[in-house]
């Protein structure tokens, strides 16, 4: 016989804690971009982590510059279901002076991927009404 296929709805409300990363999200609400820095190694993370990968020690919160450059980018015309309604959107990895790692963010402003150049200067903007999500910060061309 032909197989019987049924639909099974599946909805969950997760209580997701940002845990030790929480100050980053609080920082966004206050228009501050926070990374972390190892007091021993001086290694600085743009995407914060509270333990140093080099020496294992605890890192300190530091404020990041609010201007940076496009390290790389893409334009997503499709996405996971949750983000489909936002497409197309540009993703960028942001590099900051004096910071060792990058930050994943959205870039607003340019229309086409051809309008985005690796190395172009961009600056941080903050969403007026914080949603306590990493998209509370986004970047726009600085010039």
């Amino acid at each position: 016989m032909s197989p019987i296929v049924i639909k099974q709805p599946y909805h969950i409300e997760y209580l997701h804690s940002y845990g030790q990363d929480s100050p980053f999200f609080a920082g966004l609400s206050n228009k501050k971009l926070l990374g972390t820095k190892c007091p021993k190694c001086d290694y600085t993370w743009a995407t914060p982590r509270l333990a140093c990968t080099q020496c294992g020690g605890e890192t300190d919160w530091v404020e990041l510059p609010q201007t940076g450059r496009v390290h790389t980018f893409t334009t997503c015309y499709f996405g996971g279901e949750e983000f489909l309604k936002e497409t197309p959107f540009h993703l960028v990895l942001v590099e900051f002076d004096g910071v060792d790692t990058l930050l994943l963010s959205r870039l607003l402003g340019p229309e086409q991927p051809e309008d985005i150049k690796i190395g172009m200067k961009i600056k941080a903007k903050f969403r007026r009404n914080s949603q306590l999500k990493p998209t509370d910060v986004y970047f726009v061309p600085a010039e």
Partner: protein
Amino acid sequence: MRPVYMVSGGVSKFAKARPDATFQKMVKESFDYAMNDVPKLKHSMIDGSVASYFSDHFTRQLMAGIMAVDYLGLCPKPNKRIEGGGATGGLCFQAAWESVASGRMKVCAAFGFEVMSHVPTWKGNEFIALASDVNFDYPVGGFYSGYYAMMVNRHMHEFGTTVEQLAMVSVKNHMNAYGNPYAQKRRKLTIADVRNSTMVAYPLTLLDICVMSDGAATCLLADEETAFKLTDHPVKITGVGTGTDMMRLSDRPHGEVMLAPNEKKSDYKNLKYPGVHSFRAGRAAGLQAYKMAGVTDPLKQIDFVELHDAYTSSEIQTYEDLALCKYGDGGKFVEAGYPFMPQIDYGMKLPKKGTIPVNPSGGLIACGHPVGATGLMQAVFAFWQIQGSIKKHYGDGELQLKKANRGLIHSHAGTGTYVTVSIMERGW
């Protein structure tokens, strides 16, 4: 550790959807295929098994591994589930190798599956993207194709790689799959077809990206004594390597290249490594496997490669990780024709006629990517190549390589967070 051999393998046909079968049935199809190929192997001689599947979200069934084990009739023997994203199958293959190499088992079955058709594609993309940091990455991008597109844009910026070079990988792998009856997509394409297909994440189009599938694969591994009792043509596993890297793409550091035996420090004077353009885990896995198998010049000593081409871009990046060419030269490597099959007409003029075929099966791009089965599927196709039994299993010998004494299989997770490399050789 004692020597370990692969004695048989089987795959279910990879398809967009298999509503006619549950995952247990698909695993059984691949398992029975493998068992039928070694009639001397009795069910009772299998000492245990390892189960490979990636996502509980897709099956909506926890402990699915044991349900496949009981369907196969392998209870109450040992079993465990292995999970490591896209590299789940490769990790499973190596876990079975460990079971035999350690002396714990004489015969171990490695089986894997994924049923990705149970949700629409965009939900599937979301499930897969949950294999990225859910604090910082998933909520911003939530799309693996986007992550890989960022990596290749940097690769293009650093090294001058072109979208046409990416497209050549797609043309090659789809054409290879044309002769593989187990493949999901068997199409003759041109570079223009690839570039003109729907843009998914710039610069990657629909035909630069593998598809979701339902499917299963099984590998049967044995110790030396048992292997030669079961078959005259066992394939020896001579090298295994596994590498890891930070989950977040943005955290990849800038240091020095880990050098392959065929490379010099002066080759990479100004290269910041791995950056977001290369997979350090792939290089680490490759170097471990090469050392164990005594490979010092991979391009000359390896006859073919089945690698994890979830994206055309990641195939090019992986040529470099595996030291088939220098970092940065992956685009030129495909353009020159090295990774093509010498006997197949791709409708393109190629300067070199396939010296080290990559993905003779068609790879993930054309065969499909039922995640937990993929790494094992590569082992099965590599096993048949080395045995010289492609004609028997495909029903046509066009894809049989003349020289296939030593092959490399490669399984890859995340944006390069887990990578396995295993080396398989003619054992008789």
